[in-house]
């Protein structure tokens, strides 16, 4: 807890803020957060649709000019102001606290459906052993497994989803309740090496399938014309942005658990390149596998359907697994990695919510995890454990990401750099504690490039959603679930900002002091 000065209720003691046990633990946890479902099921399809090999150029440009700079911004915020998003923004400016709670709201909404995807993957892990999806994986997924109904709200629970969903929530709450070091850190120390090793085995197997080379040709053959298409560059920035878990509180919260005298930017580079390295690995594995499916069906890879998202994982991949020799093991590895990648990201998402409440109300990690986890679990089970779960997920995911997270990033960068003029202080902070020093180029990235590109993405998406709707769902449903999710985040932010803090949130002297008091060599170096 950040200066959790407490009253008589717990004996008038003060709790220390939790910390990672070391730099490696922090890196593993941050990598665990960044590597999620999007790395496996989003990147390969996005790269293929946007120029193949040529996409790697805007992808790398986006990584260096937006992904890493915003990641550093998150680190600087959480580390300097020693709190999760609400406490951090409150300490920067009293009226900015709402932005922090808006980010907590995003995390709450995402956690509701993220858990369901992990539950589906856990089910499919079990199905893999006897190829339980049969001859028609698409029909099995929508009709037999999820029993998808019409858009709306239903209380027709689907036992096959409900049971794994409850189990995922129990495991998640148990890990969160154990705290940052004993829960999240230990889980990541085990899960991340396991995830990388398992996925590597899966990719190596995929490379030896018939048609794997055709799949890799499809993914890596460059379409140079794509580089002249602004949409391709936007897609690259979008992929980097969504993949790195930035600008919605996670990295702010994780950085706040680093000791004050701790290196930030150099571990950040390791985290960012680890995330991208895993994405490339996933691209190779997924397209080698799709090449095999195309060869089996006698079509070109580009003619296959379901190359991204839920369709790729729960419809296309089961079809491939059924056709390949030793498919049971391949399926277990694939869905097992989905569970691991999803769970480590889910923990980080919920930690933002948990920390926000711990700091505001002086709750212990256990109380916060149990209380918030239980409420989230009930809402999640009611919304996602029923026949309308898939439609809710599809809609809420679209709004939470494209409007919620992108809006949060635009607001955050403009607020910090242009309104509050915190750029020099945050850069000074990063350079004072880190070994990889930032030049003034960092201002350009977070103050100009990021808000311009992300602002364009935000406006473009809002116009598109208003004009064309989404997914063919009825307008009332999109208003309720899609725009309703955003309205919930805004109202939640307003209500929580108006709520009284348990202890004085402003009782903090940011270290190192800024502007620096003396013109020492260290200060000069940090300012360089």
């Amino acid at each position, binding site marked *: 807890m950040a200066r959790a000065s407490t009253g008589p209720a717990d004996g008038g003691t003060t709790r220390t803020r*939790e*910390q990672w046990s070391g730099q490696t633990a922090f890196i593993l946890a941050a990598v665990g957060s960044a590597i999620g479902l999007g790395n496996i099921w989003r990147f390969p399809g996005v790269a293929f649709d946007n120029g193949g090999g040529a996409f790697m150029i805007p992808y790398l440009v986006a990584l260096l000019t937006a992904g890493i700079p915003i990641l550093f911004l998150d680190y600087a915020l959480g580390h300097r102001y020693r709190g999760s998003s609400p406490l951090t923004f409150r300490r920067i400016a009293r009226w900015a606290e709402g932005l922090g709670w808006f980010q907590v709201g995003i995390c709450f909404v995402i956690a509701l459906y993220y858990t369901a995807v992990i539950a589906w993957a856990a089910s499919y892990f079990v199905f893999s052993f006897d190829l339980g999806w049969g001859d028609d994986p698409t029909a099995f997924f929508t009709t037999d497994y999820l029993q998808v109904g019409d858009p709306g709200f239903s209380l027709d629970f689907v036992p096959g989803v409900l049971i794994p969903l409850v189990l995922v929530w129990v495991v998640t709450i148990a890990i969160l309740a154990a705290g940052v070091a004993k829960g999240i850190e230990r889980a990541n120390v085990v899960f991340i090496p396991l995830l990388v090793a398992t996925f590597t085995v899966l990719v190596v197997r995929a490379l030896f399938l018939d048609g794997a080379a055709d799949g890799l040709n499809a993914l890596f053959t460059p379409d140079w014309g794509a580089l002249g298409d602004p949409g391709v560059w936007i897609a690259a920035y979008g992929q980097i942005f969504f993949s790195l878990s930035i600008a919605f509180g996670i990295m702010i919260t994780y950085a706040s658990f680093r000791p004050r005298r701790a290196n930030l930017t150099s571990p950040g580079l*390791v985290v960012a*390149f*680890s995330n*991208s390295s895993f994405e*490339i690995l996933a691209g190779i594995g997924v397209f080698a596998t799709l090449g095999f499916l195309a060869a089996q069906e006698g079509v070109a890879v580009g003619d296959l359907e379901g190359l991204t998202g839920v369709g790729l994982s729960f419809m296309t991949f089961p079809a491939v697994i059924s056709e390949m020799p030793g498919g049971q093991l391949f399926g277990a590895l694939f869905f097992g990695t989905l569970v691991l990648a999803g769970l480590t990201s889910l923990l980080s998402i919920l930690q933002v919510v948990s920390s926000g409440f711990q700091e505001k109300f002086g709750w212990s990690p256990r109380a916060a995890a149990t209380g918030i986890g239980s409420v989230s679990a009930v809402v999640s089970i009611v919304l996602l454990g029923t026949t309308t779960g898939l439609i809710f997920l599809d809609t809420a995911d679209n709004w939470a990401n494209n409007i919620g997270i992108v809006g949060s990033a635009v607001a955050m960068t403009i607020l910090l750099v242009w309104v509050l003029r915190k750029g020099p202080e945050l850069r000074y902070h990063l350079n004072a504690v880190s070994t990889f020093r930032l030049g003034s180029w960092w201002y350009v990235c977070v103050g100009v490039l990021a808000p311009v590109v992300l602002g364009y993405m935000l406006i473009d998406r809002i116009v598109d959603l208003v004009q064309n709707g989404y997914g063919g769902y009825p307008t009332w449903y999109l208003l309720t679930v899609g725009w309703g999710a955003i309205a919930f985040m805004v109202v939640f932010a307003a209500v929580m900002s108006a709520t009284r803090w348990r202890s004085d949130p402003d009782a903090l002297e940011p270290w190192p002091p800024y502007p620096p008091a003396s013109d020492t060599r260290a200060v000069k170096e940090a300012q360089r």
Partner: protein
Amino acid sequence: MTTEAAIFLAVTILVVWGGLVASILFLRAHPESRRMPPGGEDDAAETAREAGGPVVHDT
């Protein structure tokens, strides 16, 4: 694989995985800054955090 695709596969791996290796090597060579300003040492003691007990501490 076609030569063009193979080249792009190799270059992508070289740049991204190379970036990972380079960032790890850089971190190993420079794990902590030796030019930090004074202060900032009042953060949680390791033992206190592990024990999880009540500790008087100001972050």
